[in-house]
């Protein structure tokens, strides 16, 4: 069963264009115990992790997904005749990380910390589907409230919001910076 299960899992992940979650796999392979699924997925991932393979199975946005390795980027771009993919502007990235850490958050709260108006950035991020509007805050003016999306996790290769750099890490980096200046 195990070899066959591995093959089936490989097929399911290959066919999925979005990260395939464990819940979804359980739904499809109802009778297989979760523990067995997990270990088989792990061996499948190990099979692919060898240096001889160009394709990997990564865990992102809470699911499994086929991906090429970063070192082969230039070959893919040569094939598709594509220049480098465009990055987020620093203003957009700033706004996005504020939302990631403080969600749910309103535009006024974002602008207050950044010290500049963020309307334009929010628009770009909404267009790129990296953030979404989740409702209105019960405050004067009932401002809109923003959150990050699944696509945000995928975009940064995060499995869940818990994978964001922790507050302690950040404080540590800030202190190190301070020391190196003084």
């Amino acid at each position, binding site marked *: 069963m195990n070899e066959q299960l591995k093959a089936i899992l490989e097929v399911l992940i290959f066919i999925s264009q979005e990260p395939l979650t464990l819940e979804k796999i359980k739904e499809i392979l109802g009778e297989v115990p979760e523990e067995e699924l997990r270990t088989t997925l792990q061996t499948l991932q190990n099979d692919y992790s060898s240096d001889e393979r160009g394709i990997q199975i990564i865990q992102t946005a809470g699911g499994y997904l086929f991906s*090429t390795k970063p070192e082969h980027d230039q070959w893919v771009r040569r094939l598709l*005749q594509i220049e480098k993919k465009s990055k987020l502007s620093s203003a957009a990235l700033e706004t996005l990380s504020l939302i990631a850490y403080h969600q749910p958050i309103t535009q006024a709260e974002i602008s207050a910390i950044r010290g500049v*108006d963020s309307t334009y*950035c929010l628009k770009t991020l909404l267009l790129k589907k990296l953030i979404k509007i989740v409702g209105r805050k019960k405050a004067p003016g009932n401002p809109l409230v923003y959150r990050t999306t699944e696509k945000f996790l995928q975009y940064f*290769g995060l499995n869940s919001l818990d994978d964001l750099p922790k507050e302690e890490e950040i404080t540590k980096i800030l202190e190190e910076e301070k020391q190196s200046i003084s």
Partner: protein
Amino acid sequence: MEQEIQDYQMQNETGQPSPDEGYQVKLEIFEGPLDLLLFLIRKKKIDIHDIPIAVITRDYLEYLEKKDQINLDREAEFLFIAALLIYIKSQMLLPREQEVSQEDDPRRLLADQLLEFQKVKVACSILREKEENQLLRWKRTFMPPVAKPDELDLLEVSLFDLAETFFLMMKRKERENFQVIKGKDVSIEEKLKEIVSYLEKKGSMDFLEYFSRQETLEEALVSFFGLLELVKNHTVIALQERLFQTIRVWLRKDGHHQIPHGQNYE
């Protein structure tokens, strides 16, 4: 202070268009935009006691009078920052029985925000690394990038959608009550070449806009059939951002950009 000014410039690298430079403060000890001044006060690089707010206000009013157009956003921002400056200064000027405690320092609110902002900066640099790493990975979800990055998430449309949009457009044209009859004959093959070379030059085209540019009904019809042909043989791809919106057409990256020959379209 140079380090701070650099920090400030990085912070303000917003990527947004700034139509004009805005008001520049000119004082003996400081020259530049007002928010830079605030930034330096926050960092306690400049003592607010040394800043004559009356002078700034008077100069600013003169500057406003001279302008014939006002950028409201920018001026609102100026007022906000000026108000903060006045608040801080008034608080600092008040005589107090005891030394101001850290808690009550009016600069504290600003300092806190600045700290929060520095944290965000660090988080940004970590996320940027992750972003760069992810951009090097290619997934099966990948679709040939089309035109500008902010036009992601387009739907590929079917021939029926194309047809529907076309007839919608034709109805509109009909209402314009066209009466001109021209003797010009257009062949589908000519149109195919025209569309492909247009796409090769411009990258993409707006379906509706393209057809409304056609001179006659006949020509519009012919180019429509030409486009259908191109979609069918995978030379071009037609995408629509949302239902009922305009349809944009791109050359397929993998296509051979061939114009089918030798077929009889009559």
